[in-house]
């Protein structure tokens, strides 16, 4: 059975390593924080200028001056710090943030990503996404395997304007976990009960299936 968004977030949380700084994009990526193991040390960075983000505040404790990049009210944990936008992107561009998790409209088999613009539609802007994908050492995309029309989002080549080139390392969808390397999608795991054939059917880019593909384990 295909995962829902929480399932995707839950699976991605397994990719978060002990001792790492993580930037979470808007949408599914934000939900990843809820599933990260509590016995490991992780710090969340938000590009609007905070490191060491904690959970949302309790009702009545919201502070308009303390928000995340999604403009949501947040709290901070002990050891947190605030800084300006220039220093925030120094963390990102300078490769000090270890892992970037973000959503995408399309991912190509060469690691290209498109997630900011649909020609002819209202364009909201790239925000910090272009800086993040241009510099992060490890980029995981969280997205549905197909768009609302059921069309593949894992492509030979992106059709939408790019956000970054050759940068995506891993994709976790409602159907599968895939590694992006050597201009191919390598199938690593299937969602519980989803067959390789089902995944192949909705993957337009080159899909490499090497041996038995295990099911995801979601504790």
């Amino acid at each position, binding site marked *: 059975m295909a995962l829902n968004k929480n399932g995707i977030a839950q699976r991605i949380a397994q990719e978060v390593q002990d001792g790492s700084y993580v930037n979470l994009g808007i949408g599914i990526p934000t939900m990843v924080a809820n599933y990260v193991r509590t016995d490991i040390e992780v710090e969340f960075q938000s590009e609007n200028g905070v490191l060491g983000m904690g959970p949302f505040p309790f009702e009545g404790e919201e502070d*308009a001056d*303390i*928000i995340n990049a999604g403009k949501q009210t947040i709290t901070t944990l002990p050891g947190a710090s*605030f*800084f*300006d936008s*220039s220093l925030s992107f120094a963390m990102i561009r300078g490769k000090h943030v270890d892992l970037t998790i973000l959503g995408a409209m399309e991912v190509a088999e060469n690691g290209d990503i498109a997630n900011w613009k649909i020609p002819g539609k209202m364009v909201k802007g790239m925000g910090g996404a*272009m*800086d993040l994908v241009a510099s992060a050492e490890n980029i995981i995309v969280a997205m549905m395997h197909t768009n609302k029309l059921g069309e593949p989002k894992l492509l030979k080549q992106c059709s939408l304007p790019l956000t970054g080139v050759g940068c995506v390392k891993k994709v976790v969808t409602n159907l599968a976990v895939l590694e992006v390397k050597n201009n191919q999608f390598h199938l690593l795991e299937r969602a519980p009960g989803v067959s390789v054939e089902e995944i192949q059917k909705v993957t337009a880019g080159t899909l490499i299936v090497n041996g038995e593909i295990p099911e995801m384990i979601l504790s």
Partner: protein
Amino acid sequence: MINKKVKNVEEALQGVQSNMTFMLGGFGLCGIPENTITELVKRDVRDVTCISNNAGVDDFGLGLLLQNKQIKKMISSYVGENDEFERQMLSGELEVELTPQGTLAEKCRAAQAGFPAFYTPAGYGTEVAEGKETREFDGKMYVLETAFKADFAFVKAWKGDAAGNLVFKGTARNFNPNMCGAAKITIAEVEELVPVGTLDPNDVHIPGIFVQRIFQAENYEKRIEQRTVRK
């Protein structure tokens, strides 16, 4: 000590004219110069270019200037959450230049620090790099981006003193420090104008040299865009 204090927002905004380029601090509605925006709406300042990470919402922040059709061009990284913006943009009334957020911040800092241009990897291979010089360093490709040029920078700080020293709070800091000194004239509005000598020199975020005028702001709505709480 060089005194930067002015009486109020009216005095602070002396010299602000139509067709100028403004920088405005803030991320979303967080840390925006509310008092300055209110005053700009009152004045007949038109066809301005605004450099600001976001464009406010329909009835708050830069959205107020948009409603009033005072803005000719926006230079931003993200402009969602604003119907009037969308209408003006799609109708061609409003010119929009979208810039990656880190590049936007650094174009401010470059102007502040006297760098004419810098190489950044952001946007390489995308339409953001179209028409711009690109170059390889150590096997990686970069785009040449240039410093902003602006007439006024409008920033909002938490505390400040008459010497122009500023301290920011939480994520209301964002682009504000990077814009100080990045325009010909920098005007800071502060929640609390404290006596000179009370800010710890070690804790000053922006030294007064980057600020030309400072004033005690009147009140802040500090609207929250996404009030999110846990249960």
